[in-house]
């Protein structure tokens, strides 16, 4: 009789009952809603990116479907750190594996965000150094290894909680960026954010997104993301969390074989709803049993030997 495989993971002190997480930017900042995602099966959740001030985001349309994915430019809409702190205070989050995604345009802004959030029960931080469609933040900072190093170091200085750095595929040398984050003291790398993309409506001739360009997510970017995870996990010592087009349990397995210790799911929710977490977990569990593994940790990076 095969025993039930152990799906629990611990990534640099961040504990989850399984390796699936809600990706940043999806489903917002409402704590009751994030709790529902956890009840649906997710091992952890990442909030929408929070900045120092309130941001409305871009005018709609903000998202458009394409074959094999979506292109979105929401524009880092968020209520600002002080309002978000109130949101956190409304609910007891002590039992929630919740990571707050944060963005800023300088070390000072990251310092302000982390020093305020560090006192709360959030379990860690994900630095959004990769948003592809807002100027002065995200990928614009995340494509400069020196800035990545400095911001990561600053954040590490003001918190003992795990810090993950989410990196962009829209950079010249992703390994250099991942190493800069590692040198700055990051506890993990999240790879990847969306790819810069654009959609034009041929009847009107207009770009559909109000921001004209956005970020492509979904099945279209999966092979790209797998390669980034593979590359990065072979070149840094810290854990890598995979993200990009994970839609089926097979995708999750592929990311883990490539070197991901956990996987983040976003766009798949548009196709399958929150049931996607259970579906993926069931598939992972059956795969591990069939392959004779006792723990999901055993398959992380297995493809590196070839």
């Amino acid at each position, binding site marked *: 009789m095969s025993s039930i495989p152990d799906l629990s993971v611990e990534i640099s002190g961040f504990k989850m009952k399984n390796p699936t997480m809600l990706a940043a930017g*999806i489903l917002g900042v409402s704590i009751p*809603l994030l709790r529902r995602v956890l009840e649906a099966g997710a091992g952890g959740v990442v909030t929408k990116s929070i900045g120092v001030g309130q941001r409305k985001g871009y005018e709609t349309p903000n998202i458009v*479907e394409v074959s094999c994915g979506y292109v979105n430019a929401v524009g880092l*809409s968020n*209520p*600002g750190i002080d*309002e978000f702190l109130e949101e956190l205070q409304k609910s007891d989050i002590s039992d929630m594996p919740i990571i707050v995604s944060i963005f800023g345009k300088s070390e000072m802004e990251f310092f302000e965000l982390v020093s305020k959030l560090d006192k709360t029960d959030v379990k860690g931080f994900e630095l959004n150094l990769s948003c592809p469609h807002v100027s002065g933040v995200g990928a614009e900072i995340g494509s400069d290894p020196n800035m990545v190093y400095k911001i990561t170091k600053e954040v590490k200085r003001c918190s003992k909680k795990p810090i993950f750095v989410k990196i962009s595929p829209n950079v010249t040398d992703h390994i250099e960026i991942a190493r800069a984050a590692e040198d700055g003291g990051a506890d993990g790398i999240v790879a990847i954010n969306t790819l810069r993309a654009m959609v034009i409506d041929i009847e009107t001739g207009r770009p559909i997104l109000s921001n004209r360009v956005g970020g492509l997510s979904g099945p279209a970017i999966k092979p790209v993301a797998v390669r980034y995870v593979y590359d990065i996990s072979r070149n840094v010592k810290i854990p890598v969390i995979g993200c990009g087009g994970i839609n089926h349990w097979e995708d999750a397995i592929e990311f883990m074989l490539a070197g991901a210790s956990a996987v983040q799911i976003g766009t798949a*929710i548009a196709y399958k709803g929150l049931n996607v977490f259970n579906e993926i977990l069931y598939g992972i569990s059956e795969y591990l049993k069939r392959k004779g593994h006792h723990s999901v940790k055993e398959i992380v990076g297995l493809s590196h030997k070839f």
Partner: protein
Amino acid sequence: MFRYQADKPIDRPRIVSVKAVEDESPIVRTIYFDDEKCSEALPGQFIMVWIPGVKELPISLSLPSKKGNSAITVKPIGPGTNALYNVKPGDKIGVRGPYGTPFQPTNGKVLIVGGGTGLAPLSLLCYKYISYYTHITVIVGARTSNQLLFIDKFQDILKGKGRIIVTTDDGSKGYRGFASEVAEKLIKTEDFDMVYTCGPELMMKAIFKASEERGVAIQASLERVMRCGFGICGSCCIDRYLVCKDGPVFNTHQLRIMQDELGVYSRDYSGRRVNIH
């Protein structure tokens, strides 16, 4: 299960021509257009309407197909709705959807309460499910008499199967006061198999409370800021629900769960809480 297929229809704006526009009141207009998917929508479902160069907006489908058309009913209250209100026959708009949960029909005696443009999805409900009902009471509420919507249409649909009660806040026609006041009295004194409501959230909250006290089932159509329309951006959250995907029509059980937020606050585009007055 999603697998990429070259022939899979992609859910992006379908560009359609405006066929006709019709004034429902001095400040509300119905816009007719051709779209097969929209004409198959169920009452309560909504679409995302793109006014190219201006904005994309969530709007309920309001009237049954008129020579194969679909219809939305709009009141100008901001740049997006202003632009939509002013479209002319022949203008191009984009539509995607329909999205969301519809009203569920029920057999028996029903109460339908609409305030302002909240009457829009309720009129489609009446058209579609008239045969299910043994008796219908429609409360049509507005601020003032020239803002009352669809009264002639409801008279046509009901055909002696029920009654229409008109309320205006200023008393310029019908009962003077809120639609919710009349609804609360009726719920207390009569037996309904279902209450359907759409309109200002405080009105719906009052009606929900009265329904709860009497143990009557209710379905309410809510409104929130929306971006995606299909349950991924989270802009339209209310407690643990998404108005775009779990709603816009919510049942008694769901309304109970969201009671701390219903009629208390909504959220703006940033996600910041805004009190509902």
